[in-house]
């Protein structure tokens, strides 16, 4: 008869100096596509739960510190409340919580700029990686702040091409392994699409997209989302997968291009009621629309591509961000200078040997 252990194995030791950052975007997953089709709603309460799952996981794996962005929409407040409750609860007495630092901004704007600022602070304060919870727009906003710090892009909703849907606990495992040195950091950089708008007065606006740039005929930024098939004219993609949702699904059907390939794809589009060739594409969850196609080409790295349309708006990763007119010159350039992105399956496969195990010898 085996002897029962009086207590479990010792906890995984805390690795001094190890840290990660977490940025949940409180505004993602709420745009007008929920009315137009049946795009998923992702409540902030669930984002707070995802953060808590990541915290518990990285804490258990020995991460010392977590930097967490704060917001006025209750995610950080919910996390704080739950940590307080759970820390005192008997049922979670065995959980080792990391030290959580709630970061605040001196001048919050309530816009994407906050995400950029948080990413920059986390990168500057020793985070081995930053995990972002949100959609394509959230990921794009973090890029300028991250520098060389790797990102893990977790999707909060079904409407995204760049971030992945993977259980937060598993994402937390990858983060914890990297932060404690048990798994290697990613070495390659993602592709970016750089948009340059040169105004008549010589002013230049620079924007970048992680997934796609879509030039369309809509005259205003409106509710930002882009789903009207007849308005689409030019689609530039860093990668295009046949199984993706949104604007890149058009290119994904015509010229599939992988995330790791050193090229992108450009598609010229037209109003489906006049175009000779049309393709059915899932422009948003639940919304399959006919799109008029004039042709597609490979997009080479570092070659500026002039935009042909003379007036309209430019959507970056699915959201209208820039209005332009006939006096403005717009170019799109693909480059391999994006962030380093953590691929969870790759990290876990590469670090299988380092996974904590114990062997019990029974008397």
């Amino acid at each position: 008869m085996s002897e029962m252990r009086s207590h479990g194995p010792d906890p995984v030791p805390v690795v001094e100096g190890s840290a990660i950052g977490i940025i949940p975007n409180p505004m993602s997953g709420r745009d007008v596509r929920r009315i137009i089709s049946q795009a998923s709603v992702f409540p902030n309460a669930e984002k707070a739960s995802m953060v808590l799952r990541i915290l518990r996981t990285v804490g258990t794996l020995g991460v010392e510190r977590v930097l967490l962005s704060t917001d006025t929409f209750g995610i950080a407040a919910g996390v704080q409340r739950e940590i307080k409750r759970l820390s005192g609860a008997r049922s979670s007495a065995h959980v080792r919580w990391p030290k959580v630092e709630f970061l605040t901004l001196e001048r919050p704007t309530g816009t994407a700029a906050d995400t950029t600022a948080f990413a920059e602070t986390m990168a500057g304060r020793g985070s081995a990686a930053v995990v972002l919870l949100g959609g394509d727009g959230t990921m794009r906003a973090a890029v300028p702040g991250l520098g060389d710090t790797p990102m893990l892009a977790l999707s909060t909703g079904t409407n995204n091409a760049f971030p992945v849907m993977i259980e937060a606990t598993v994402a937390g495992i990858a983060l914890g392994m990297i932060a404690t040195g048990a798994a290697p950091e990613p070495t390659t950089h993602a592709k970016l699409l750089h948009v340059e708008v040169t105004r008549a007065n010589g002013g230049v606006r620079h924007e970048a997209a992680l997934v796609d740039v879509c030039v369309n005929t809509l005259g205003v930024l409106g509710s930002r989302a882009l789903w009207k098939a007849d308005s689409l004219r030019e689609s530039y993609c860093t990668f295009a997968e046949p199984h993706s949702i949104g604007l890149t699904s058009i290119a994904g059907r015509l010229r599939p291009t992988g995330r790791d390939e050193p090229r992108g794809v450009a598609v010229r589009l037209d109003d489906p009621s006049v175009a000779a060739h049309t393709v059915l594409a899932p422009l948003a969850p639940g919304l399959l629309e006919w799109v008029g196609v004039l042709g597609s080409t490979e997009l080479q790295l570092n070659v500026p591509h002039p935009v042909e349309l003379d007036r309209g708006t430019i959507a970056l990763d699915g959201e209208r961000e820039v209005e332009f007119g006939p006096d403005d010159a717009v170019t799109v350039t693909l480059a391999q200078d994006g962030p380093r992105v953590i691929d969870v399956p790759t990290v876990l496969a590469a670090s299988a040997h380092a996974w904590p195990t114990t062997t019990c010898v029974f008397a």
Partner: protein
Amino acid sequence: MTQTLSTLGSDAPDASALSEAQLLDVYRTMRSIRAFEDRVHEEFATGEIPGFVHLYAGEEASATGVCAHLDQDRDTIASTHRGHGHCIAKGVDIKPMMAEIFGKTTGSCRGKGGSMHIADLSKGMLGANGIVGGGPPLICGTALAAKIKGDGGVGVAFFGDGASNQGTTMEALNLASVWDLPAFFVAENNGYGEAAASTWSVSADNIADRAAGFGMPGVIVDGFDFFAVYEAAGEAIRRAREGGGPSLLEVKFTRYYGHFEGDQQTYRGKDEVRNARENLDCIKRFRQGVTESGRLTDAQLDEVDAQVAQLIEEAVTEAKAAPVPGPKDLLTDVYVKY
């Protein structure tokens, strides 16, 4: 001079296809609301206006962006205690509104309602409402009437972050969904229910998150951006009109004045309002957008400003000169027949 602002109605085009005249109409509505509220603020401060007054300045894009899609005859709105903007955007005459606020016989309600009860049922405006959460159940009724009559009408309930916590609002959301009504719920989250921050009082943090619990879509828009509200509201109203059922739109912004006139607002951050006025203001943004893209000129917009200023001036002058209700008015208008 236009006194009644015409809503574009159910034929309202996509945001990018708004004509020059329609854009001017939109601008006139937003400018009229702002000028009306700024003037009421001044007149209240000098003691000319009796009672309780809650101003809508800063929130113009919401009422304007939503009501632009509504017809006056078949579409209805229910409003809140902060109702002047909704009234103007739904086409209630401005001069009688001002007279009502001054408590005069020439007022929209003959001086018997005041700021919190301005209504014009002939224009589908079911009244500002002194009760937080009073409007949403009523809108279930107007939407039901439209559904039974089959006239394609839509009922729109404007309510605030405070009312989002009221049982009446929750009941209305549920009933609208159960009855599959052509209803549209617009949660105007201006950050404060009276003096309490909505980030404290609204447990779900986003009011739009609650929509899922009632089986309807919930969407958030930037309330400082007319075009964002216009586009999202247009989709929701079209959906309701076509029989697609109710939906909820959360409009996030802030109010420029206090909960009521006289509120010292010590519960607010120091630069909060100044920052919004300088960097986010919906009228500034609209002007900038339409002039930079060449759709309207500053001269056209300045002309509207001048016309609106004159209208408000006349409205105040006439309101002040109008007679107050007398003893015979006290007893009338209680019942149709008694």
